[in-house]
């Protein structure tokens, strides 16, 4: 299943395609008759000066009440089925605790290893412009094993943030005093963005982090390397 970049983005993609198809059909169902009526029944001197009598049609009214009802209930039910998968992490998922703060992220791995990413660690310190994800210092990257489902338990230290995994197309708010969850799996090595999706003040737009997806073996090695200089007491020095 290498061709799918990330789970559960594939479910979103299917939902998107179903919706897009239905929307285009509905748009045409409204637009085509409207265009026809607008041309055919335009005011013309001597030809179409007066509107003609039209009988109310109960059948039509019922038709355009019932069909949309069926369509939207179908969509909601399809979404229900997908959402169960998108929300509930597979049993073997690796659990990572994420704590958001103004403005950065703390990732805590099962063995206690922590990684911090700050708003100023994703930008060029001189120009304050975003770096490319691969240009960010590895020290600030959260390593993620390839082909492995990850369950994120999210909370916040101060205000509400939102953890959005760009390739996996999932987002969930990180609310102080609560623990929320989401899961994802990335199947290709590389560097991927995480963004904050809930407005949180001055540096909201720089509150990003980079996920570095590596082969499982490399991840194990990295995980057991222990914490280097990236720890909370160094936060002030950055």
């Amino acid at each position: 299943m290498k061709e799918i970049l990330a789970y559960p983005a594939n479910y979103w993609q299917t939902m998107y395609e179903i919706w897009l198809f239905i929307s285009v059909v509905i748009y045409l169902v409204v637009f085509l008759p409207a265009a026809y009526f607008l041309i055919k029944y335009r005011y013309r001197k001597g030809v179409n000066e007066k509107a003609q009598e039209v009988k109310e049609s109960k059948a039509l009214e019922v038709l355009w009440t019932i069909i949309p009802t069926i369509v939207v209930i179908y969509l909601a039910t399809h979404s229900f089925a997908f959402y169960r998968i998108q929300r509930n992490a597979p049993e073997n998922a690796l659990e990572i605790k994420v704590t958001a703060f103004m403005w950065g992220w703390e990732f805590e791995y099962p063995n206690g290893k922590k990684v911090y990413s700050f708003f100023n660690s994703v930008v060029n310190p001189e120009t304050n412009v975003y770096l490319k994800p691969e240009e960010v210092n590895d020290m600030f990257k959260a390593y993620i094993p390839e082909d492995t489902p990850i369950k994120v338990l999210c909370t916040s230290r101060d205000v509400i943030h939102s953890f959005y995994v760009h390739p996996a197309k999932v987002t969930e708010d990180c609310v102080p005093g609560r623990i929320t969850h989401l899961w994802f799996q990335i199947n290709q090595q590389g560097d991927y963005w995480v963004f904050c999706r809930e407005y949180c003040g001055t540096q909201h737009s720089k509150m990003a982090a980079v996920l570095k997806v590596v082969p499982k073996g490399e991840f194990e090695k990295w995980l057991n390397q222990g914490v280097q200089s990236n720890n909370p007491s160094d936060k002030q020095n950055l």
Partner: protein
Amino acid sequence: MAAVGYRPYFSAGLKEWIFTTDHKKIGIMYGVTSLIFFLIAGLSALAVRMELYQPGLQYMSEDTYNQALTVHGVIMQFWWAVGIWSSFGNYLLPLMIGARDVAFPRLNALSYWFFFAASVLAIITLLPGNHIKMMWTGYPPFSLNDNAGPVAFYTLIIHLLGASSLASAINLVVTNLTMRAPGITLKKMNLFLHSFLAMNVIQILGVPALAGAVTMLLMDKYFQTAFFDPTRGGDPLLYQNLFWFYSHPVVYVMILPAFGLISEMIATFSRREIFGKTSMIFAIWGIAILGFMVWIHHMFTSGVPDWIRILFSYTTVLIGVPTGIKIFNWIFTLYKGSIRFTAPMLYTLSAIFMFLIGGLTGIPLGLPAFDIAVHDSHFVVAHFHYVLGMALTLAAFGGFHYWYPKFTGRMYSELWAKIALVLIMIGSNLFYFLQFIVGLEGMPRRYADYPAIDSWIRLHELQTYGAMILGFGILVAVANLILSTKLGKKADGNPWQSPSLEWLVPSPPPPHNFDKIPHMPEDWDPYNYEWLEKQHKKQ
């Protein structure tokens, strides 16, 4: 019914304007205030758009950006999308029901002056040192943080606007229900009146929830209570629930009157009564009632239990049904009509198709499986700019043109109105359609800066061009409306030949509207265009 020889109501002195209780003058004051704030909010949006033109911060700091976006959101919501309907409602509602004024004229003046006071406070927040930077939603705990700016201003603004809305809503509901001239039954009422009735009922039910929420916010910030502060046992999601319990229905406060205006204009320019008028009325009330049962879709990713999300996804998508009914009925009103493509008709048709795109993109936002990827992204922003931004604004501008002869006694320039519409449609679709795409690609909302992803840069560039064209189009439309008060041709009392009651009085109407309260005959109906022709023949 015609009254001759009165000075038009608007040629009054300043003192008379300030102390007036005349619903028409108050309507005009609402309209002018609303439009001025619309232009302020529009300019702040253009500033935001300029900043997003390229990644990096070129023109302003993050704080300035956040403030500009907050100003844009708050003002567009409360001064334009809600405020402008106070203008149409006050001016037209008594005329349409054959009343000389609203039920409580002094209360009506008070409503406006509350609105005015809120406007003054809003201007004060634009001064340095008073900047509010918490977006129009003002979610705690962020709004309890000093980074958010002076929350007290926000709270007082909401309270003043809330008092204004409540007083105005009660006033217009009472007027509508008790002061209709003989012969105007509930069934014969204009759809404009039905939608304003539903809209005002939503205001009465919803405003207290928002007032409560912001009061608790104020107490949390300044009086050490802990409703929303999790470190002291509060719950930040309580605020979101209270806030959206009002602020979702309020989108129907904004859009239902727009539907009312669209119905009036579609009927008049097709020379036909609205197809399925009864189902239109049921649809209005269906939207109003369902509107109170869907607010959780604003919180689909906020940590509420999953089963609640699923429940509210069903109620949310069901709103598509009554709105669909309205769109189908409008389209079938065109069937076998005699359609005149005047400027207001073109604005109305544009509004319907913009609403259709906005509505179709609203459905997936009610599906958690879709929303999970685009919540708080630019996709959402594009969606509500199609419905509230464009459909509403086009309907309101259509209304300005449609009732222009009624308001001012003169005609606007048809050519410039159409040029403005072309610019607005090109600009807005270029802008908002690409905003959908950048949203689908993941661009988060409320970002002053964004990483240099190639497709995002290109999309943002084009959006900024679109926004400039849109802004220019609005400017042309507003200039046309302002200049035509002096340059426009003198208008006939009933230039569109509509039997709706507001057109049966002279333009502009005399200060007391009707010399004699009209008795509407059995065969009269606001959409019975034959009736009007018969009346002409009789004379």
